[in-house]
């Protein structure tokens, strides 16, 4: 018996075949092979192999790249006004392949947002947002908004002149929103001007809050797509 078969048996006996309630039938196959095949080998319609239908997957791949490179950058980045710029400079000049990793993160951010925008166009132009898939469209548009916010918060983190003034201008724009504008600026800025608290807040929003939210939304969105299938054809 091969090693792969042994691994499969291990998980079958401990999880897939295991049911503790007599008379209750599990809704998924009771062995790992069938379960995985059901997940991996789901047939898709011919029209969905067109490159335009790969943009969502491209966006997700870019998201995974952002997480991987973001974790690596986080090993050296220090989110304080005194150390932030120095730590970015350290990544760019001292760490092995540091400029490559940061470059991947910066370009990956562009690819992530570009792919989401193009994917949104595709879904709009093929009418895939229509009933019964309105909720998937709503989730997708929230991911678009969150990803733009993710880009905005990440832009401040190098803490150089460009970052500082871009954030100042960006927050001033947010301040012009009627009624809630001032509250939004106060919450994001954490003080009268862009300062140490802004850096802390943007950092924790950038590395914890938004990634977790996007991951949660994407998980629900993918389950909905699996259940409803891919709509339409060009």
């Amino acid at each position, binding site marked *: 018996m091969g090693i792969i078969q042994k691994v499969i048996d291990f998980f079958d006996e401990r999880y897939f075949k295991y049911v503790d309630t007599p008379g209750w039938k599990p809704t998924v196959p009771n062995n790992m092979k069938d379960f995985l095949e059901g997940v991996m080998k789901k047939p898709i319609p011919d029209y969905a192999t067109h490159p335009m239908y790969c943009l969502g997957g491209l966006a997700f791949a870019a998201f995974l790249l952002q997480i991987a490179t973001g974790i*690596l950058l986080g*090993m050296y980045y220090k989110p304080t006004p005194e150390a932030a710029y120095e730590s970015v400079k*350290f990544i760019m000049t*001292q*760490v*092995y*392949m*540091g400029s490559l*990793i940061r470059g991947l993160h910066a370009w990956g951010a562009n690819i992530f947002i570009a792919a989401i925008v193009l994917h949104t166009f595709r879904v709009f132009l093929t009418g895939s947002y229509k009933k019964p898939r309105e909720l998937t469209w709503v989730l997708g548009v929230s991911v678009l908004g969150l990803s733009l916010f993710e880009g905005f918060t990440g832009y401040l983190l190098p803490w150089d002149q460009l970052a500082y003034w871009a954030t100042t201008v960006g927050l001033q724009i947010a301040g012009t929103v009627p009624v809630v504008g001032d509250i939004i600026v106060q919450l994001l800025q954490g003080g009268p001007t862009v300062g140490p608290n802004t850096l802390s807040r943007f950092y924790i929003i950038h590395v914890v809050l938004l990634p977790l939210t996007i991951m949660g939304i994407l998980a629900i969105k993918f389950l909905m797509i699996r259940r409803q299938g891919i709509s339409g054809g060009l």
Partner: protein
Amino acid sequence: MKKTTRRNLVKYAAVCGIGFTVLNSVPVVLRYVSPSPDWPMPKGQVKPGPIKVADLKDVSPGSFTMFNFNFGKITLVGGLWYLEGKVTHQRKGATQADGKDMGGGANENIGLPDEIVSYCLLCTHLGCIPKNWDPEQSILTCPCHNGMYDISNGASVISGPPPAAIPEIKLEKRGEEIWAVDWKDLNYVKTLDVYKNKGAV
């Protein structure tokens, strides 16, 4: 054996390509996360090895300066004196148990007069930095518990709680510069409890 179909060929090519890419990134990532000895030291710390402590023209009789040095484990503070009057260096072969009176040793510094001496500023009592320097009596006092060292006589302990003298640092004249190159007596430093506990040796 499975028949090699066009589909299988493409599938294996794709899997191998992705696998090759992922495997290739492993050593890069490992090296990315590993600290490198080439990195600049944090503020106040210096790299292990001999270090320049002063220019010869900057030291004159009566001067006292401090410097950072690292002989392999941690960064420590050293003191450099150009004393006046009669000077004896630290003798070798002592231990913490009999290291209070340490004068009468030979000058082992290379190319420098007897009057230029250097000692490690890490009190053998509890590891404070003794740096209150009295040039009149050539006494160095530790601010924590008033331990007093006679710098002109091998840094012997003349009063206070320190169990032994602070160890001498071996100097060397390199061109017109003074360099700290090593402990004068490494075996003595190894017997000092504070130095062992701080990880200095």
